[in-house]
């Protein structure tokens, strides 16, 4: 039995004028509505992310590889720089600094705390009470992380490449920028996935994963490294710059595959899409502790 009196609309009250006008439901389909939500998050986060602190961090992340490259270029200036081994070393240094170090660090900072930063600022609750709000927040913030990080890698590459005496500077620059974008997409999806799965210590786990799997395991010439992002990026770099395979390994295929580039790109994009899809599925069902009261 219901103990409450049912409500009745009383349109004669003096408060009628203080009522917000009704909102018409949009006639667009669900997909368009979800896209509107993601676009909204991207626009909002982009505006919000342009802060002195964020720009300073962005500049700092560009400055480190550029400074390192500049130092190396200064030390190896003169005839030595045209030797094939030095050229190879330059190419690998740029690869390690740009698509590897910068993008991984950037994604660690911007993709991993996608949900955690919302929980800390107590704004997650506003996303979860909107249909599709959780997924829009995840995807929108992921896009912003990719934009910030890949732009960081692109600017750093643009500044660093001219410092070195490279045989094909434009070609190298183009390859680095493409790899920075691909690396951001792949690492971003991976780190966002870890960040969504874990409410606590996501940063620690992501950092440990990066060191153990992408840095350590990714450089071990074994079958397992084929499942790392580093292997796919490295193979692409070999292809695009037509670098010679290392001759001190019995099986150099383990370090970089000669499979066509499009397969590596497809692996990276499909892997990222799969990770994002799982993260989106998870975030929709997750019950994060959104406030302290029990």
């Amino acid at each position, binding site marked *: 039995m*219901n103990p409450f009196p*049912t*409500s009745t609309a009383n*349109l004669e009250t003096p*408060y009628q004028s203080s009522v*917000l006008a009704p909102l018409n439901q949009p*006639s667009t389909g669900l997909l368009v509505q979800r896209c509107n939500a993601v676009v909204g998050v991207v626009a909002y986060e982009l505006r919000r992310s342009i802060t002195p602190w964020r720009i300073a961090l962005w500049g700092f992340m560009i400055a480190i590889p550029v400074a390192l490259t500049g130092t190396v270029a200064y030390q190896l200036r003169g005839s030595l720089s045209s030797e094939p081994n030095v050229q190879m070393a330059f190419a690998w240094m740029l690869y390690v600094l740009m698509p590897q170090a910068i993008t991984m660090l950037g994604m660690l900072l911007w993709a991993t705390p996608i949900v955690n930063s919302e929980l800390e*600022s107590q704004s997650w609750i506003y996303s979860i009470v*909107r249909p599709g709000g959780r997924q829009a927040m995840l995807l929108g913030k992921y896009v912003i992380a990719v934009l910030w990080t890949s732009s960081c890698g692109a600017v750093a590459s643009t500044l660093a490449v001219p410092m070195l005496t490279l045989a094909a500077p434009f070609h190298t620059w183009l390859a680095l920028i493409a790899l920075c974008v691909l690396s951001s997409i792949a690492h971003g999806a991976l780190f966002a996935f870890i960040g969504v799965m874990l409410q606590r210590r996501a940063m620690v786990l992501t950092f440990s994963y990066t060191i153990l799997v992408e840095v350590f395991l990714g450089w071990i010439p074994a079958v397992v490294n084929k499942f790392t992002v580093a292997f796919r990026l490295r193979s692409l770099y070999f292809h695009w710059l037509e670098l010679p395979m290392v001759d001190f390994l019995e099986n150099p295929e383990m370090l970089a595959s000669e499979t066509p580039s499009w397969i590596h790109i497809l692996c990276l994009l499909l892997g990222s899409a799969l990770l994002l899809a799982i993260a989106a599925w998870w975030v929709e069902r997750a019950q994060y502790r*959104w406030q302290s009261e029990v």
Partner: protein
Amino acid sequence: MTTAPPSEHRTNLEILDSNAPLVELQHASLMYGTVLGVNDIHLDLPRGAYALVGPNGAGKSTLIGLITGALRPTLGHVKVFGTNPCNSRRVLRQIGLCPASDLLVHGVTPRQWLKLQLQLIGLSTKQAIARVDETLEFVGLADAQHRAINTFSLGMRQRCKLAQAISHDPELLILDEPFNGLDPIGRHQMTEMLIAWKNQGKSLLLASHVLHEVEQITQSFMLIFGGRLLASGTAGELRRLLADLPQDIILESPDRDRLASKLSGQPWVRALHRTVESNQLIITADRPLELYQCLAQWSNGDDPITIERLTGSDGDISTLFRLLVSKHRGERAYQLSGTTS
């Protein structure tokens, strides 16, 4: 201010099942690890305005989390407008939530934030901007729309939270401690707005730990404590319930001994205690209403008894909850804290 919707658009009312109850909870329980957040709540609410009253930590926010689909019940089922909010998020479009937690976004204006909240429900940028203007005007933040939210006073941030809760024109508005941090004028404005909301025929669920604040808005109460729904009904019914429960009533009177003598013969008096230092008499009465009637007679009779001070438990929400918990546990004997004998 209201306008007829264009024919190609649908209003919220049209896409809802008009026969579906507002909220249905079937033996819903929620565990936070080993801590019980909500304990076996069974509830069936038709559309209307309700106040969820309970002290801090009673489980109000957890219950709201279940209703909004933010939390999934460990046991039992939850439905809002006939739909499980965890399985079908579309129903969230009909819910507006103003949470208790403070709004801590930095470097963002209410305009930008509100636009995001509207886009999150699927509105295009153009539609969202148009609605933001209306909503900010409505909550009285139009003049401050270009200021960062983190520079706002608590009351302004509260209005900001309210704006996002009502901007998408939901059928059910849920407010968790909406009066927190508001000055008296702000409280009055909030109360008026909520009364207007209710009078539109829309549903309202108001969580508060202060009974009298919500009494002006609705007469339908649910009392929650320790994750359990202890009682529900109108304010009058709750008072009657309280009146039927044994209570401690403290009297201060120069005629204390004469009063004690008269009371000792009454069948509804369970115990009498006299304090040593003052003229206090603590009466444990099974039927407080009868005590009040007798006191009125004795103080107006031929040989009147002077009563200087009477302290009852009515209106004291903590006492009310303790009494209800005692009743819920089936306890006959109870003792209010802070009394002396």
